């Protein structure tokens, strides 16, 4: 199960497991983002390379207009995936405290 929705402050709340079967849902939502936006991963349990691809594609599109995704409340395991992928250098990422 994967859920994605806007929070009360305009942040994007992601929850559950972002695997390859959920990419269409995630991509459709991300395609509507046109400005700098914070993704709150506090309830996101898991992400695979398929989800990383969506984040990268969105970040590259936003960069063309000077915008960017910021990612907060990332759990340790997902942060490790970002680190292995080098995403910690191309995204502003904050680990969950």
């Amino acid at each position, binding site marked *: *199960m994967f859920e994605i929705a806007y929070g009360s402050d305009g942040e994007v709340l992601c929850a559950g*497991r972002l*695997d*390859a*079967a959920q990419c269409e849902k995630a991509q459709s939502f991300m395609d509507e983002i046109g400005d700098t936006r914070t993704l709150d991963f506090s309830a996101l349990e*898991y992400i*695979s*390379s*398929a989800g*990383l*691809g*969506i984040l*990268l*594609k969105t*970040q*590259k599109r936003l*960069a063309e207009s000077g915008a960017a995704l910021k990612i907060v409340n990332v759990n340790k*395991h997902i942060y*490790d*995936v970002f680190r*292995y*992928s*080098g995403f910690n*250098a*191309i995204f502003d990422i904050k680990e969950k405290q």
Partner: protein
Amino acid sequence: MHKDFARDYDSLTALYQFAEDILAANDIGEAIRFPVHLALEELFTNMVKYSPDTDGDIGVEVVVDGGGVTVTLTEEDVDEFDVTRPRDVDTGAPLAERTPGGLGLYLLQNIVDSLEYDYHDRRSSVVFTKESG
């Protein structure tokens, strides 16, 4: 424990639950469960993606032994695809030079403790182990 899964991304939820039930029943901690699920998905989706002309199921076996986990994936009537071959991914490249895709097997190779591939008679078998967080 062994189970066959339809060669489709829609199998991922059942695949996750199959592995999760075994790992939870054996008190395997999150530090091992997360990479096992990630490696399992990356291998399964790779098999779905790169053998589009085959519709046979993908067999998955998960064995827990002494706190370590061994996972085997098998498929029949497929072309050779050596998942142990080093992947050329520049994880230090700036955003402008990064392209989506290609990270799955790179991640796999970095998060498991061992990875073996066998291919003969058009049958592929991949075995990985994860023993530490």
